[in-house]
């Protein structure tokens, strides 16, 4: 008999967030069904900024990071991580990547799904779609490495962003042009692979849907400024799933409309995450420890709630010049404007776009402390945090906690030490809050 698995996920507050697990199961079921029917399945990455194109082409996308996170939540990642290590991938590499590389290796070795894999396993893809972005080298290197197990058509989309010190007026045109051309290249690739032609009207429709969805999602999160906090970060790391993995679908739009309605109801009726909200914290730009989301409930046991987070936050609404009508150009303009939204402010202040965003959220959501998590296998997001803290302190004396762990690899995590750090941090936050209000 197997020992009972420890609880990893946190108790959620909103009813809508509680539906996410079912949605994730449905995503997996859709992929299994697609496989059976011969519908193309594409591995892809979160925050690739071209989800609409995949949807408009009738391809079933499967977020491989999402599946690695699921393995971690289910405490079923270690066998895949160990397999990847045995294949020669060191344990310091992105554990999303090594988890799935291990999975791929095992699936090939077994000639089928690893037994008992969460949600029936990750289907063999028809193609893999990576992205060569400003950060996250694994977004193209991981799939390139996975070719030793999968050997399927693969496409890397180039998407670059200027640095904070760049003069946006000087570089904007060729950055947007580059993304537009690369999006055309992606469409060409998908047309070749599927034998289908892009239906541009359908892409326009899906793009409209995506933009409406992003706006409703953003507006729902604006409601979270309320006191007491109506919806916490442990819900948001779930409610991001339709936004980052189902964008461009009616389902995603309906989901965020329902989320908006529920959060509004909770705000109107002053229903908080916890009954006695003492401290309001912000989860910074850090990926969460998927095997240990229950830590949010530990914060709550000490009277601390997370009304907002930077990670997985919906992109800000941005203006697109009215003359831009082609859907690929619209996507390129929107992406550029979203990715550079805080650049001018950061340039003027000599800071960093994330820090500018932090400062806005701290003010708007009445935050008493900031929590960051250093995921040991992810340099993409988790190097530069010390720099962010240093700059943040230039403008604010708000307490900051830096936790250590990982996204998938629980071997990098020490729960007792994490709780000790949280205990000490809450004392600091308490003193800060009293000082601020005295």
């Amino acid at each position, binding site marked *: 008999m197997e020992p009972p698995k420890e609880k990893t996920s946190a108790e959620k507050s909103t009813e809508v967030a509680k539906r996410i697990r079912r949605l994730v199961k449905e995503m997996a079921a859709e992929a299994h069904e697609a496989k059976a029917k011969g519908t193309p399945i594409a591995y892809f990455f979160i925050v690739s900024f071209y989800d609409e194109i995949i949807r408009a082409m009738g391809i079933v996308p499967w977020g491989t990071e999402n599946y690695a996170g699921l393995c971690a939540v289910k405490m079923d990642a270690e066998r895949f991580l160990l397999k990847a290590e045995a294949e020669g991938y060191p344990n*310091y590499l992105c554990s999303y990547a090594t988890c799935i590389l291990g999975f791929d290796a095992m699936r090939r070795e077994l000639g089928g799904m690893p037994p008992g894999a969460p949600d029936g396993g990750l289907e063999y893809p028809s193609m893999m779609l990576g992205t060569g972005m400003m950060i996250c080298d694994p977004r*193209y*290197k991981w799939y390139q490495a996975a070719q*030793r197990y999968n050997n399927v058509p693969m496409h890397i989309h180039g998407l670059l962003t200027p640095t*904070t*010190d760049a003069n946006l007026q000087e570089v904007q045109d060729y950055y947007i042009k580059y993304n537009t051309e690369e999006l055309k290249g992606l469409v060409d690739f998908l047309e070749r692979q599927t034998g289908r032609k892009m239906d541009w009207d359908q892409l326009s429709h899906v793009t409209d849907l995506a933009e409406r969805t992003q706006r409703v999602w953003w507006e729902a999160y604006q409601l979270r400024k309320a006191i007491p906090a109506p919806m916490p970060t442990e819900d948001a790391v779930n409610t991001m799933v339709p936004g980052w993995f189902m964008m461009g679908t009616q389902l995603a739009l309906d989901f965020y409309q329902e989320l908006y309605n529920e959060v509004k109801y909770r705000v109107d009726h002053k229903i908080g995450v916890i009954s006695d909200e003492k401290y309001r914290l912000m989860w910074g730009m850090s990926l969460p420890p998927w095997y240990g989301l229950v830590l949010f409930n530990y914060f709550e046991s000490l009277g601390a709630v997370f009304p907002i987070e930077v990670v997985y936050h919906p992109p800000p609404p941005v203006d697109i010049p009215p003359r831009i009508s082609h859907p690929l150009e619209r996507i390129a303009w929107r992406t550029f404007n979203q990715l550079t939204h805080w650049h001018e402010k950061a340039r003027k202040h000599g800071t960093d776009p994330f820090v500018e965003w932090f400062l806005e959220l701290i003010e708007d959501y009445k935050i008493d402390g900031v929590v960051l998590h250093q995921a040991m296998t992810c*340099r993409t997001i988790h190097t530069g945090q010390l720099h962010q803290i*240093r700059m943040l302190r230039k403008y604010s004396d708000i307490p900051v906690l830096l936790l250590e762990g990982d996204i998938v690899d629980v071997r990098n995590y020490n729960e007792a030490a994490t709780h000790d750090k949280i205990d000490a941090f809450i004392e600091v936050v308490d003193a800060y809050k009293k000082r601020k209000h005295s």
Partner: protein
Amino acid sequence: MVQGLARVEQIYQDRGQRVKELKAEGRKVVGYFCSLTPVEVITAVDLVPYRIMGNMRQPITHTDAYLETIACPFTRSCLDIALKGGYDFLDGFVMPHACDNIVKLYDIWGYNIKHSYAHFVNVPHTLSPASFEFFEAELETFRRSLERFSGREITTEKLTRSIQLHNEQRALVRTLYQLRKQDPPLLSGAEVTKVIVAVMSTPVTEANELLRGVIKEVKERSKGCQKKPARLMVCGTGNDDITFIEMVEESGANVVIDDLCFGTKPYWYEVEVSDNPLASIARSYLEKINCPRTYRQSPGSHQEDLEKRFGYLYDFAKEFKVNGVILYILRYCDTHALDAPDVKEYLVGKGLPVLEIEGDYPTPSPIRLKTRVQAFLEMMS
């Protein structure tokens, strides 16, 4: 002034010495990272490009508060030197979009180390037509930025002259490498590393003169290195110090060729001289520098993919009569580490034994590594 290898030794021991002299004479010095920085543009405006390096012999003491320990140890060492004032003589710095580590370092360096000039050159990851066009536009932005900083115009003629000078340098380095083909080679791997470090620390015209002197001196040697049973190729990440290669050579091997950032990578190609020098630079840097950070689309079988990506390594092996390979990858280098199983599979498939070493910077224990290298050499024999 001493010439040839004696001069190389002087510069290797005190890398900043020459550029500091030039600075005292009124020249401006621009530090840069990585083989992907288009040095031709810097030289064209009469600034002195100076490759930023770490210090293998100096422990990292200041960086922990600024850059996480999970970051590339080489970039951490570079930052450490800068935080301690070791790069105060630089007037500016340029970083290309090489990898996540460098992208993050750009902001941190710019915020904490005050130079008069900073510029980031964005480099696409793919070889699509749009990527070449983008890179050319980005180089145009870089050109304008350097013009503003220097107060001088970068004309097509100046760029062309600069391309010619750097091409000449690349040709000289390749000539130097030819002297390693014979058995035993005429100069050691450690000597070559010192030459490369010296060249990267000296303005191009002087460095070319230095290279000519070194080539002449080495050609005149009556005998080269001691003959050893193993002729190795060292591949992998940045290694600007002789410690590792010297240890390998002391263990019973001659290192005769490499695929390293402080080795062949910046020198094994040329930039075409054309009417559009920036387009030529963009094409060459993106297409011809074999770095795992640039994705090469390769439809076909897995074996065809490996051939396309790593065929040049086997060409090196054949040309330099290599009978073993050391894959030296610095810890936390995602791009190289994700390639490593493929590189190994490819080279082993070609009949070459491969030893993979996870390096650190500074290297913690050369003795421990020496044991592994010796065991590898024994296995080879």
